[in-house]
């Protein structure tokens, strides 16, 4: 058959099929919209981070360290600058600290801030917005600081106000409204305070052990290429020891950690979006099945007139593909509209880069997956077209042509492969794709089984004694061709996804906010020098603090384990990132005679070998390091190598919120090492601010971290993330509802006849609505119950096995979800039955 003839026949075939077309659009567009929105967001973030790389880095290259940058590296930078006229450098230091405003009577008001100290020239790219809008150098000169509007409000600061930073008096010169290199993602521990690098040096906050993120930013000459940046990066890295803790980043890298993080997140979200599309596919399969069932006579005539079986299949497959494309186009438009508003809705969890609403690659992906889904899920009904006997033109009860078992198996395998392929496209991971496809198939099979069982049960139930409304409603569910199976499967899958996501998110948030033990600390003091502890303790006790605990911290670098250097151990790991970082990062060591209550020895014995320096390691950390009982670990403690033997392994109850360490050393080994202190305490509610104010006034370098505030910020972030997930889960529900409505619509003529007959026999409209409601309520109930149970099992697995958190029952969600499904099902079903309900008996009976 010529392509032009095929298109002509397709166009003719689609006449009088408005309902079919609408349903196609509804089924597919929801899922495609979700796919396009997620893909657009992911791609937009990635491209945005790359495009804004220089601005976000505020330079072309950044040399970064948590410790003072070695002179050798500083010299290397200077040499490079000298060799590349037009290049410049600036320092950038960031840290968390407490600032204070003197009040009357010797009181202070304090606040935790994220301090940023910048050298001349910052930012090399992008704009800083300040109020008043004056040159930055001018605003920050002579101990000038700029504060975020939040901070100004909190401490009642105006231009000219005094603000003590590290006990050093500074002057507020205005507000900082925006910074080009602020990523805007995650949690801010406090509002921004901007000062000059020289100003920070004057505060005395740069002491031993201060947690400062130090950077040297470099701007390359204007004509420099990416290669110049990369060459410089390699030159610096070549001179660094693997465990130096110094990282070099270029704008070419473009925030690799953040991009990887978002890629992982959107990979997961992409699979959630795919669920909606798969549900849409189920709806498409049902539409095609119903449509082809209504075309059997016509198909027999076409075969009689000389259309070959494969031409018949091609004709209807082509029509399906075209409709799929149309539905996908609508979905792509919808997804683009969502992408236009998503960045505003999710501002807290997305980086501050422009994300364009229109993404050609996302739209293309949506069109491909949408059209592919339509064709894939239609394969089974389409392939049965080959079996329509042309003899049907003479005898309606003619037996279908024989189906090949191999062909049936092939169709099933193609469907599974298609779902797997789509999942691979969305997730980029064959492992995830396998899990997704397997999970979907298992869930669909269980739901289909439940639908079948429901139908059988209702068929056999003794309905004789039931009221007529109930009786007829139940009978409708069991009727052949009622569409029970796809409706329950689709709606059930939607409920499963939404309930599962909701339970996981609630579980995470609850775990954060969970009732902590009474003695759990609600306040931590960090960056404290040893000599400052007595005064800090006195302040705590004066405010009624309980459960006060303090431990020393010595920072060290791991040199070797059992004779293998940390550098070699890191190299053996092969992958960049966490696997190697565990060997190269700075380790925090402490010592104590007795372990706190939330530590349990699981192997060996604490401080049991007087002949050696002993160390106790948390068991999971030991596994990550590859250390075991008896291992010899050498630490470089501020230049002094100290060997220790692992004599015990511990299990730590991290959720106690106490001060805990991966590495605990035997007392006496590190007494003389340079150290600082950390302390934890539980202060009465209402006294936290008083403690912070007094610490800020008397110990300005000590940072006070208030647990409740941090938990609330994390919980808020989780809520926003949960919102994004629930929106996507909502697409799945919408797809399920669309399928239910479509199944109802497909049986509209039958329902119309039914309504006509019932009305003729004396049923009122309310009675008919009642009958339909019983039918839809049962569908919704079965789907809701199975979906809720499935979602609960999924959430339980994720929380207890994936995140290793305790499981909490949520009766409200578990109870309300099936009820919600029933309500949605009834509302959607009745809405879809409106035209049938309006039919008058005479219209239908005359048409017969």
């Amino acid at each position, binding site marked *: *058959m*010529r392509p032009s*003839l095929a298109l*002509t026949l397709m166009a*003719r*075939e689609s*006449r*009088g099929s408005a309902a079919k077309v609408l349903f196609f659009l509804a089924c597919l567009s929801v899922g495609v919209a979700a796919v396009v929105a997620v893909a657009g967001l992911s791609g937009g973030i990635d491209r945005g981070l790359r495009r804004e790389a220089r601005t976000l880095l505020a330079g072309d290259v950044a040399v970064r360290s948590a410790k003072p940058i070695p002179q050798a590296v500083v010299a290397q930078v200077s040499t490079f600058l000298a060799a590349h006229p037009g290049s410049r450098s600036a320092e950038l230091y960031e840290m968390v600290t407490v600032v204070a405003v003197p009040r009357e009577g010797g009181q202070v008001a304090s606040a935790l801030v994220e301090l940023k100290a910048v050298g001349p020239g910052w930012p090399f790219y992008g704009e800083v917005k300040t109020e008043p809008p004056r040159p930055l150098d001018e605003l920050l000169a002579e101990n000038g600081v700029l504060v975020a509007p939040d901070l100004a409000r909190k401490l009642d600061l105006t231009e000219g106000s005094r603000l003590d930073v590290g006990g050093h008096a500074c002057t507020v010169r205005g507000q900082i409204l925006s910074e080009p290199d602020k990523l805007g993602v995650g949690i801010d521990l406090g509002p921004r305070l901007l000062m000059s690098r020289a100003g920070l040096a004057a505060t005395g906050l740069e002491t031993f052990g201060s947690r400062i993120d130090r950077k040297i930013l470099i701007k390359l000459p204007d004509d420099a290429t990416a290669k110049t940046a990369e060459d410089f990066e390699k030159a610096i890295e070549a001179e660094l020891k693997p465990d130096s803790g110094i990282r070099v980043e270029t704008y070419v890298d473009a925030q690799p950690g953040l991009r990887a993080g978002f890629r992982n997140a959107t990979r997961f979200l992409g699979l959630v979006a795919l669920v909606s599309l798969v549900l849409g596919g189920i709806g498409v399969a049902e539409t095609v099945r119903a449509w082809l069932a209504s075309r059997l*006579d*016509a198909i027999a*005539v*076409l*075969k*009689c*007139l*000389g*259309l*070959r*079986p*494969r*031409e018949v299949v091609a004709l209807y497959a082509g029509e399906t593909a075209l409709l799929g494309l149309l539905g996908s186009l609508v979905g792509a438009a919808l997804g683009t509209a969502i992408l236009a508003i998503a960045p505003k809705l999710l501002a807290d969890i997305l980086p501050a880069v422009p994300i364009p609403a229109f993404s050609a690659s996302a739209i293309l992906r949506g069109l491909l997956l949408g059209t592919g889904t339509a064709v894939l899920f239609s394969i089974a009904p389409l392939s049965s077209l*080959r079996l329509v*006997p*042309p*003899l049907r*033109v*003479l*005898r309606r009860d*003619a037996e279908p*042509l024989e189906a090949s078992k191999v062909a049936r198996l092939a169709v099933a395998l193609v469907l599974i492969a298609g779902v797997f392929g789509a999942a691979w496209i969305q997730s980029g991971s064959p492992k995830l794709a396998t899990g997704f496809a397997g999970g979907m198939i298992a869930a669909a099979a269980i739901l289909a089984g439940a639908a079948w069982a429901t139908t059988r049960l209702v068929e056999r139930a003794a309905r004789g004694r039931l009221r007529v409304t109930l009786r007829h409603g139940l009978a409708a569910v069991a009727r052949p061709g009622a569409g029970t199976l796809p409706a329950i499967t689709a709606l059930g899958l939607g409920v499963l996804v939404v309930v599962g996501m909701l339970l996981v998110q609630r579980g995470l948030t609850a775990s954060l906010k969970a009732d902590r033990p009474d003695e759990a600390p609600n306040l931590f003091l960090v960056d404290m020098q040893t000599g400052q502890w007595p005064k800090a303790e006195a302040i705590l006790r004066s405010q009624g603090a309980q459960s006060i605990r303090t431990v020393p911290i010595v920072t060290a670098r791991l040199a070797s384990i059992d004779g293998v250097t940390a550098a070699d151990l890191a190299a053996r790991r092969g992958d960049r990132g966490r696997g190697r970082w565990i060997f190269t990062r700075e380790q925090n060591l402490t010592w104590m005679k007795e372990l706190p209550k939330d530590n349990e020895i699981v192997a060996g014995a604490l401080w049991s070998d007087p002949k050696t320096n002993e160390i106790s390691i948390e068991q999971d950390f030991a596994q990550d390091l590859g250390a075991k009982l008896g291992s010899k670990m050498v630490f470089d403690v501020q230049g002094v190598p100290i060997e220790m033997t692992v004599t015990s392994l511990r299990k730590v109850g991290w959720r106690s919120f106490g001060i805990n360490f991966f590495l605990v050393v035997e007392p006496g080994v590190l007494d003389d090492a340079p150290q600082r202190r950390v302390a934890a305490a539980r202060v009465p509610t209402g006294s936290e601010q008083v403690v912070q104010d007094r610490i800020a006034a008397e110990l300005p370098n000590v940072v006070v971290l208030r647990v409740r505030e941090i938990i609330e910020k994390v919980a808020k972030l989780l809520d926003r993330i949960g919102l994004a997930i629930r929106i996507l889960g909502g697409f799945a529900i919408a797809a399920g509802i669309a399928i239910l409505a479509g199944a109802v619509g497909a049986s509209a003529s039958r329902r119309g006849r039914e309504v006509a007959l019932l009305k003729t026999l004396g049923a009122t409209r309310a009675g008919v609505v009642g009958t339909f409601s019983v039918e839809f309520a049962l569908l919704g109930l079965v789907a809701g119950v199975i979906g809720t149970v499935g979602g609960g099992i999924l959430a339980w697995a994720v929380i207890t096995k994936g995140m290793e958190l305790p499981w909490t029952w949520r009766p409200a969600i578990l109870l309300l979800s099936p009820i919600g499904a029933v309500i949605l099902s009834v509302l959607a079903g009745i809405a879809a039955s409106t035209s049938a309900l309006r039919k008058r008996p005479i219209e239908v009976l005359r048409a017969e």
Partner: protein
Amino acid sequence: MTTAAPRIELIGLTRRLPSGERLLTILDRIDLSIAAGEFVAVLGPSGSGKSTLLALMAGLDRPTSGEVRLDGSAIQDLSEDALALLRRDKIGFVFQSFQLLGNLTARENVLLPLELAGRPEAGARADALLSTVGLAERGHHYPSQLSGGEQQRVALARAFGTRPPILLADEPTGNLDRATGKIVLDTLEQLRIESGTTLVLVTHDPDVARLADRRIHLVDGRIDREERTVAENVP
């Protein structure tokens, strides 16, 4: 002197169908030969196997045993594809229930076989046929907008579109009143003569059968007797 193969030849044709645990014999060892251009009517009571005979001739069904030959070539073992092509090129159909495609206009219904066969100037041929059957002005109407007689005339136009060597008609006037049926039959006859088509027509109406060159009477799946318009009765 060689004689041309019959247009349609049935040799020992048998068709059985399962009915519960039994096998029902619908046709039992039918031997029949129809020459090119002949008009043969097949009569018989309900359940005598008339429609099954027609279906086997058209390759719509497969015999349990025996052969169906069209122009000397056996068709019973052809693939579904080959049978579809055979029907496209060689066989036209007229059905009792018209079997027009409801989403196509009258003209498009007539066009369809011409388009499938890739015939040139299909549009002109369709218009000419519609004119022949007296429906030139109704080509843009859908079947639901036509009367039964008009629909059957459209079906006739469709059946003759490709000038098929064979036309099979299954009770073409079965759903029509007498007067309309006569119009349809006259049109059928006119088109048959113009095209020289071999026509096999199934009917239960003796008046309709009288128009044929030959009448085959089927009883319980067997040929009971045969009559020719100008030949002796064959017991």
